[in-house]
């Protein structure tokens, strides 16, 4: 009896060990799935070279977010920012917003960061991680730049548009627009220097 009891307890213990091992494996797998996508944008950010100001390629990458301020463009729409002959174009998969260069009153650039897990999807993912692990995911962010453009419409009404661009692009766009005749109270800075906010 004693031997049988010992066998049962050792079998139970080995089963528990196996379950614990499975659980640990599952946790590591989930952690891997969560961390790898977090890390990838950061590596991509480092590897990507600074793009040219006028993107003339026909393949759109929709990596610019228009937060607010363009007519016929929804808030937080993603699209491609292009400088045309005499206007700044924000091209989306469906539709386009335009700001004539001559209507631009001022341009500002600033540095910001964007969370990797943002928006509704990101919030759901964060909420789904047990033991408040969503807070850990909030630590992952990518560096971005904010391009703020003040302009006037045909009736001289004041407008402002805010674009969030990948790091290094806002200053390039600003310099190009100023070269084309857009007004800017703060001149475009030399590469590597930070613009002082008014």
């Amino acid at each position: 009896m004693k031997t049988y009891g010992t066998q049962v307890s050792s079998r139970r213990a080995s089963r528990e060990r196996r379950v614990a091992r499975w659980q640990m494996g599952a946790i590591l797998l989930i952690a891997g799935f969560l961390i790898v996508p977090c890390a990838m944008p950061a590596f991509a950010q480092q590897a990507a070279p600074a793009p040219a100001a006028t993107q003339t390629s026909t393949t759109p990458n929709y990596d610019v977010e228009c937060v607010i301020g363009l007519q016929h463009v929804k808030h937080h729409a993603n699209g491609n920012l292009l400088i045309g002959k005499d206007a700044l174009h924000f091209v989306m998969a469906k539709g386009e917003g335009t700001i004539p260069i001559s209507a631009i009153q001022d341009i500002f650039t600033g540095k910001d960061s964007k969370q990797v897990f943002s928006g509704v999807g990101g919030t759901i993912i964060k909420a789904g991680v047990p033991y408040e692990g969503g807070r850990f995911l909030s630590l992952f962010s990518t560096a971005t730049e904010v391009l703020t453009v003040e302009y006037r419409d045909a009736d001289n009404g004041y407008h402002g548009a805010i674009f969030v661009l990948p790091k290094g692009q806002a200053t390039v766009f600003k310099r190009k627009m100023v070269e084309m005749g857009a007004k800017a109270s703060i001149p475009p800075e030399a590469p590597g220097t930070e613009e002082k906010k008014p």
Partner: protein
Amino acid sequence: MRNLNRAAFTIFVAAAAACAGFLLAPGAAAQAKADAVTTKPVTPAGPKLTASAVQIEVMDPGDLQIPPDFRIAEYEYLYEQVNATKKFQHVYRSGDKRAEGVADLLTLKTTVESFKKGSQKAREVTTVGGWTSIKLKAQFVDRAGKVVLEKEAEGKVRFMGGNLNATYDFAKKIAAIIQDSFDASGGAAPSK
């Protein structure tokens, strides 16, 4: 046994409800007090105001340094929210030439009183830090320069969302003030 279980469950639910009430009541009272403080009326309560048009001016930052994106977001959200109230036949942007001929035009001026940029990351990681807040004084001024309505409102982001959402929160509060203080004039569709 079954009756005992039922009684235990009832006691447990009652205790939980009492605890929840005990925890939530001070918070709700504090929130109500804070709302009362942030939207104190300057004009005496009386008949509602009317105007056919309003022109929204760009925020005056005062002595504070406000990032340009906050300034623009506040302006654009305010324009949208004021338009959405449908209390005015026309909502004009700053500098709009069409506003010059309107006799009963009101001008909405906003002045920053306090600003804290905060941080989304700090907010979401710590919960208790990184809050964004922007407190502004809003004035409705008539053609003669008389202030017909003056209120304070504060836009805040406490937990979720980007920093610029504070400007959206502020604009929503101004829209609520307009809803409370103005009567719709006419019934024409708001301007775009």
